[in-house]
């Protein structure tokens, strides 16, 4: 069809001309419905902005030069750190330095305390994020910008590899059927019954115990990605296999088989392209959850990054939340202390993770609605 052919409002399927590219037509049809979905378009624009930021961040100065590390304390108005940090569990803090109380130690804080109302601190908006493991602070905005390619890259590579494995395995299982299908499906059942995040953490614990600190920078990240992929392929395998069971009964597959197409040709030319859409929807959903899960891992106190502080959205978010909890708890431990609540520390990293996940959700929901004729009626 011509690119300027007018689309009928009611039936966007182009009728004029030979249908030379049915898949292209479907893509155009999907885009037509997607465009009318405001939320999906909002999601798409936000994702595009993030991608642009990620690309632009490569022109940003290197972390060492720009991600300034600040002194290891949260400044009070008088910049009297000792005032906030009177409570230091193991031993009294040296004057002028501040203890980063880990989230796990909070049960040690004496429970009966009242403290004065939280108020906005003196720090400039969007400036500092803490890293409890080093006690150092770094700039939130820099961290978020430098973190964009890491967050996006890690998310896409985890979900992409998981989907690829699931796609191949699920398609072969669905096409072949029989014992192979049964074996693959039981195997996925087993993996699906271990809660995903726990499996990731167990894998990381085992790997870090056996490999220790001998890993390179990229090696550690590869291990992280691998651990996630191990937990993620079964979901895709199950989705693809269910879709293939429907696809393989279609008459075009039968026709292809009758005209002598080999199994691999059937798989690559007919079955996989026609089972792709649910995978695509699931992938776009999952990409958004990766930074969340990375944040959870960091929040639970499991060090996964080769260097610290590592600019990754979920990580920055988790560290900031931990820091604020600690601040409040430490502050609550000091009678009569005025507590400052640096809300921007949790707002901006949290907002980044949230916006990424929610826009990806909007987009995939829009795609699902656009693809499913029952839902778009």
């Amino acid at each position: 069809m011509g690119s300027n052919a007018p689309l009928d409002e009611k039936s966007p399927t182009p009728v004029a001309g030979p249908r030379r590219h049915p898949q292209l037509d479907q893509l155009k049809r999907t885009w037509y419905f997607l465009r009318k979905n405001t939320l999906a378009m909002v999601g798409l624009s936000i994702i595009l902005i993030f991608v642009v930021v990620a690309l632009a961040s490569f022109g940003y100065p290197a972390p060492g030069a720009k991600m300034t590390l600040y002194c290891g304390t949260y400044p009070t108005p008088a910049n009297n750190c000792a005032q906030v940090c009177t409570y230091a569990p193991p031993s009294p803090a040296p004057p002028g330095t501040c203890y980063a109380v880990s989230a796990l130690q909070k049960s040690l804080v004496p429970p009966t305390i009242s403290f004065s109302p939280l108020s906005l601190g003196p720090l400039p908006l969007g400036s500092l994020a803490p890293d409890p493991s080093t006690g150092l602070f770094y700039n939130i905005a820099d961290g978020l910008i430098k973190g964009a390619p890491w967050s996006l890259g890690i998310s896409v590579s985890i979900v992409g590899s998981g989907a690829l494995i699931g796609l191949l395995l699920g398609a072969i299982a669905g096409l072949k059927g029989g014992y192979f299908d049964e074996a693959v499906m039981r195997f996925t059942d087993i993996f699906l019954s271990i809660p995903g995040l726990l499996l990731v953490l167990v894998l990381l614990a085992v790997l870090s115990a056996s490999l220790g600190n001998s890993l390179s920078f990229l090696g550690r990240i590869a291990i992280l990605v691998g651990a996630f992929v191990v937990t993620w392929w079964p979901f895709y395998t199950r989705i693809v296999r269910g879709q293939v069971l429907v696809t393989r009964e279609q008459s075009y597959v039968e026709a292809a088989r009758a005209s002598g197409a080999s199994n691999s040709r059937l798989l690559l030319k007919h079955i996989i392209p026609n089972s792709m859409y649910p995978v695509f929807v699931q992938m776009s959903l999952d990409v958004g959850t990766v930074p969340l899960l990375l944040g959870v891992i960091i929040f639970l106190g499991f060090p996964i990054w080769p260097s610290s502080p590592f600019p990754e959205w979920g990580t920055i978010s988790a560290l900031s939340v931990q820091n604020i909890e600690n601040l409040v708890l430490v502050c609550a431990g000091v009678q009569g202390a005025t507590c400052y609540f640096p809300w921007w520390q949790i707002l901006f990293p949290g907002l980044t993770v949230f916006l990424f996940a929610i826009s990806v959700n909007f987009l995939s929901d829009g795609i699902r609605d656009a693809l499913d004729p029952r839902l778009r009626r």
Partner: protein
Amino acid sequence: MKMWIYIARRVLLLVPVLLGVLTITFILISAVPTQQRLVSAFGSPKSGTGQYISCPGGGPVLCVNPWWTHGIHTLGLDQPVPVQWAKYMYNAFTLQWGYTSSSSYLVQAGIPGGTPITQILSWYLPYTLELAAFSLFFILILAIPVGNRAAVYRNRPFDQGARILSFSGFALPNFLLASVALLAFVVLSGGFVSICGGHASPLDLWFGLPPSLPGYACPPYSGSPPHWIGSLQETSPTHFITIDALINGQPLIALDSIRRLFLPALTIAYASVAGILRFVRNSMLEVMNLDYIRTARAKGVPEAVVISKHAGRNSLNVTVTVLGLTFAFFIVGFPVTELIFNLRGIGLLFTYSILQPFDFGTIFGTTVVFSIIVVLANIIVDIVYAYLDPRVRLG
């Protein structure tokens, strides 16, 4: 097929999955270097943790470390792998899951090394189950009515609102949500009321409870069974706080422990409602387009009855299935929530055991228990589904 045959078949299918999960954990634990396994199991001796140590008399020749040989022999690591696997399975099914490490974070948390892992789990599991039940309750009372209404008011403000609400549940990091909720409640209630086993909450006022109950002291972490209910004289036969409190004739404490579950259960539910709500809406949309709904409307059945009886009932099947599918996702929120709210469930146990130095016995014990919960939940869902839809068990 009769219902009980169906149930029996489903339960039988549990066995291979369980064997598979245990085999995976066996493979993983075998991948841990021997030295670290021995340290995790027996602690490190003064003489060193290597396979060879310098001899007592000194000299350039190294001697075999008796700690190492003894450890290897006790764990059965000197036997062939199939034998190790069989022993592992036997121990797993006879509930001999080993002992906690004496060098891990659990010791700092008050659990002395060498405590049987099954015993620890039996102390910590009930709280997780109570939390799960409570969150499930919130999920159901939120997801079904809101999802149905969103389908009825499709693409209108209510639907869009529900969409944004459910997506925000998906997209908000649970540690952020839980922490902010906790901090907000702390601030609102004017400080900490009691930090043990829960959170400070203004719900105190709603229930008309005093901020601290008489006889309710914060129990310290201790090696003995956590005496949740305060004084040591009271018995704790089930380890479920609410049930134990009622057995001991302490309804106020039962109420108190339920009150403490509100905020954590709500934060867990909020994250999980998202997916379920979408499925309820979509299945409801599908059902509402079916012919019998049109028939019902044509013959003059009131719209409210059409929605609640004709369509609502039939879209429930999908809801049940989705509940089973999201259970694994839902349970992932437990470690973080229990950590933030300081609830002594197995999620907290897991969190402590993955801190270095790892406590591998506890890591794998909690993982297996979590997997069993997921599998059992799926079986229950299947059975409920078969009960709701006879075609499943007949087909």
